[in-house]
């Protein structure tokens, strides 16, 4: 301690070195369990995946049109291709709307103007359920809820659809 220039003693130097090296070793040991613990957070959810349905936004008109596409679905043991369908049109506010064609009554497939007696409506062939153009169920017909609407996104002029979501009261 006689020399003022000696700021780090041998003991301090060894302490620093050991702490540093020990820290690295501890970090090396811990990194895998930590990565494993937070893995579910980092994983991309497949449920929220949007699928390109092969329809350009320019081709969407005021007249609902049916589009079909397939998605890969992992269902327990096996992965399978599932067919999806939607009725897509542009509403008065120039917004794109994509309805799921599944009837809210018992799940048949509805079609736009599916019945000659009911123009300008979605029609369910099973029990004559009907929906207006905006997807709202026609009162007095079997369905009790409006058609589900797909989560949608437009990327590079193409329409991407996700999962159908029940509509809130609109």
């Amino acid at each position: 301690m006689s020399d003022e220039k000696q700021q780090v003693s041998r003991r301090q130097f060894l302490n620093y070195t050991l702490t540093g090296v020990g820290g690295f070793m501890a970090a090396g040991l811990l990194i895998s369990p930590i990565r494993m613990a937070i893995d579910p957070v980092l994983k991309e959810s497949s449920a929220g995946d949007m699928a390109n349905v092969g329809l350009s936004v320019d081709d969407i008109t005021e007249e609902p049109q049916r589009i079909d596409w397939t998605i890969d679905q992992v269902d327990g043991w096996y992965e399978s291709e599932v067919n999806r369908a939607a009725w897509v049109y542009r509403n008065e506010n120039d917004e794109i709307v994509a309805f799921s064609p599944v009837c809210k009554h018992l799940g048949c497939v509805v079609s736009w103007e599916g019945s000659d007696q009911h123009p300008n409506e979605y029609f369910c062939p099973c029990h004559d359920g009907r929906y207006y153009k905006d997807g709202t169920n026609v009162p007095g017909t079997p369905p009790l809820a409006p058609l589900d609407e797909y989560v949608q996104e437009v990327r590079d002029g193409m329409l991407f659809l996700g999962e159908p979501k029940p509509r809130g009261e609109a």
Partner: protein
Amino acid sequence: MKWRKADLQTYVQSKEYIDTIVLPLVPFGIANDEESKKAAIQSEMITLLSHELEKELTGRMLLAPHYSYLKSADKQTEIARMNMWAAEMKEQPFKHIFILTFDPSWKKYEKELESTLLWLPAVQTGELNSKEMHKTVREQVAQMVELIRAYWQ
């Protein structure tokens, strides 16, 4: 609805809405190599078709499990058995019973059946998973939906 637990629960709750049952016929026979291959294609096709049809009309029809029969079996015995199935279905009550088949040999016995026989000409060329096949199946299903709806009215 399909023949599975979840769908049956819905069926039991809404019996009054479901008055149609579809029974796909599947031939079986392994004695002749060519014949058995044909039977297998028919089975695959009918599974595909009936599932697509079920998807369109879920809310009003029940898809029964496949009825399989030996190609070489005596048709009269099979018809008696099929009529037993039909009798059971009618009690539920299912008003419309459709039998779906690609096998033309049933057509001759149509009158003896206590259900409606829908014979379809089999499409046996091309790959089952190809785009064209999807289109064909979809068109065929659309026409079957039309036909079944005609019976409903």
